[in-house]
């Protein structure tokens, strides 16, 4: 299985059948999906986190209750079920009648998944900002949501940046199950090579290395960001 001949044979096929193209478009699809998921997750996460930390004025307590209830339900369901179940649900039920590029559907699904986890990060980030910031904003006449948007979130965001990049890395890995609903990401590219060539070790090694390169690249980016943050302007 590890023999020189099988290796040569595999890599000949690799070139001949243009598997590098399969792999490349797998990388593209993985990254596209991850990027879409990150953006959607971030948006959902911010909304959910704000709902979770907000105290509504007395008149709107009923709305607060409803929104907090929905946020809790969302977070509980997402954190209580596997990503692949969620993806299947969204793909096969929610978006059943919609024709959409698969990476987009995957991105949306994983974004919805990721939102629940990002909400937690963002909530912690917001609650980590000194209470005095909210007070200073409010005392200047800014509304609660203006203060959130202009003062709290930007600060929380900077502090959370490394954690968010790390969530991006988690998503790169999580999206590897998209093949289960027909996606054509890196993992699936590996599967295709396996099916076609009957060789396991080389496709899996290629896939492993591809993921390692991607995740460690983004880990490095995260480190750089962390360093910048530490000696940043504030």
């Amino acid at each position, binding site marked *: 299985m590890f023999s020189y001949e099988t290796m040569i044979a595999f890599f000949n096929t690799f070139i001949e*059948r*243009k*598997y590098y*193209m*399969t792999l490349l*478009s797998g990388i593209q699809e993985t990254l596209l999906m991850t990027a879409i998921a990150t953006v959607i997750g971030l948006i959902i996460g911010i909304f959910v986190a704000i709902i979770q930390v907000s105290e509504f004025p007395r008149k709107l307590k009923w709305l607060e209750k409803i929104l907090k209830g929905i946020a809790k339900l969302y977070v509980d369901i997402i954190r209580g079920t596997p990503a692949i179940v969620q993806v299947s649900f969204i793909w*096969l039920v929610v*978006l*059943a*009648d*919609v*024709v*959409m590029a*698969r990476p*987009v559907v995957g991105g949306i699904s994983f974004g919805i998944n990721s939102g629940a986890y990002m909400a937690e990060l963002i909530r912690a980030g917001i609650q980590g900002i000194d209470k005095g910031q909210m007070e200073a904003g409010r005392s200047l006449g800014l509304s609660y949501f203006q203060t959130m948007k202009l003062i709290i979130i930007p600060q929380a965001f900077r502090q959370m940046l490394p954690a968010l990049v790390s969530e991006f890395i988690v998503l790169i890995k999580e999206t590897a199950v998209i093949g*289960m*609903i*027909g996606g*054509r990401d890196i993992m699936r590219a590996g*599967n*295709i090579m*396996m*099916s*076609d*060539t*009957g060789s*396991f070790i080389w496709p899996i090694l290629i896939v492993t290395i591809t993921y390692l390169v991607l995740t460690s690249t983004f880990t490095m980016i995260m480190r750089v960001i962390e360093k910048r943050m530490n000696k940043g302007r504030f």
Partner: protein
Amino acid sequence: GCSKSEDVIVMGTNATFPPFEEIQGNEIVGFDVDISKIIAEKLGKTLKVEDMEFNQLLGAVASGKVDFVAAGMTVDEERAKQVDFSDNYFASKQVIIVKEDNDNIVEAEDLVDKKVGVQLGTTGDIFVSGYTSEENGGTIEVIQFDKGALAVAELSLGKIDAVVLDEEPAKKIVANYEGVKIIEAPFINENYALAVKKGNTELLEDINEILAEIQADGTYDALCEKYFGKTE
């Protein structure tokens, strides 16, 4: 997201079923894809191919996610309750794949109490999963894979004892693996057809017409020649 536009027709398939459909480079190609292209062309529409797990195809066409299924799908009573099948366009059969040195398995009855791999939701799966031995009432231990190739892979590793697959893909896949062979014993004969949503007679009739057309004008034979190296 964009809803389906008028001039696109969506074909659902599972691209792990060579030579009917498989992925080469970035493209899904194969016998079914070519036939579907012709259908789309004759209907004046652009073909869009949706690749998904085989076991999700019926649901996908039933829910309207795809317009029709072309996936080397065998006509079957149970399935016919959920979708409408076109006229048959290919005659196939199920075959048993075993290790080259295995002389113990020669017919379906020999699969009893063995670990047998199938592709989830295929005819082979339905047959093997429902199989009960006439002699001793024994059943087959079924392992359902997403892809036929993975089943053959495990067979070649010795993790399972046999695989039941459709004949043509079995031939293609077996060629990729060392030490496995197809048993030439007769097994279930079956027919492939396209599937549309239940009650979509308009599309069904169009498809049947086109299938008849290409069989008459030789296009079909050319495709067979291209993919199977033989004519029906």
